[in-house]
């Protein structure tokens, strides 16, 4: 097991009370595993079960395999423009 730091923004940061959340992952884990692991954390209880995830500054699918060095973020529904 290692731990990745997941960036939070806007409403998600407000819901968690922090700009980041630490989530444990195993080697070979995918985005879907990260989200499952995250749901078991008490600090993440307010977050939606299936948020959009960005890996290395691009939207990722649930099948994307994660590495410890990846830049990972949860993306709330966007409202720019």
């Amino acid at each position, binding site marked *: 097991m290692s731990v990745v730091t997941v960036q939070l923004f806007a409403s998600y940061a407000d819901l968690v009370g922090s700009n980041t959340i630490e989530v444990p992952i195993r080697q070979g884990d995918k985005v879907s595993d990260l989200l499952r692991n995250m749901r078991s954390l008490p600090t993440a209880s307010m977050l939606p079960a299936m948020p959009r995830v960005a890996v290395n500054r691009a939207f990722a699918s649930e099948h994307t395999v994660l590495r410890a060095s990846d830049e990972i973020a949860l993306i709330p529904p*966007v409202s720019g423009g």
Partner: protein
Amino acid sequence: MSRSAIVDRRIDPASLIAEVSSDDCGAVSVFLGTVRDTSDGRSVNGMDYTAYTAMAEDELARILAEARKQFDVTSLVVEHRIGALALGEVSVGIAAAHAHRAPALDAVRYVIEEIKKRVPIWKLEHYTDGTRDWVDPTVPRAEART
């Protein structure tokens, strides 16, 4: 030329127009998003825009690349502002130039539609009753959004 940026200063439409214009273009199209005094029937007196800046810049660049390819537009610029904005201020400015009008108009529309879908920027509305709320376009509201 093509340029995209997240900025924390005023957006100047005349500068964007000058930036894309050239003598081989016959058409310039511009779109500006501005802070409105009403949202979902609630009275608004300001807005905070926040971004996942690194990704927002990458995503804007990808959108411009798509627009350039799709509409054969080479002169295209977009700036999105973050921070605190007052009523009437410009939050996003897009300008495209082309020899002919249709590609310039199409490119600008494509860029604003894609920004609304996929650029990680969020607005926190300030209501005149003192409350604030993150805008969530995925939640149905009383009124269509800009």
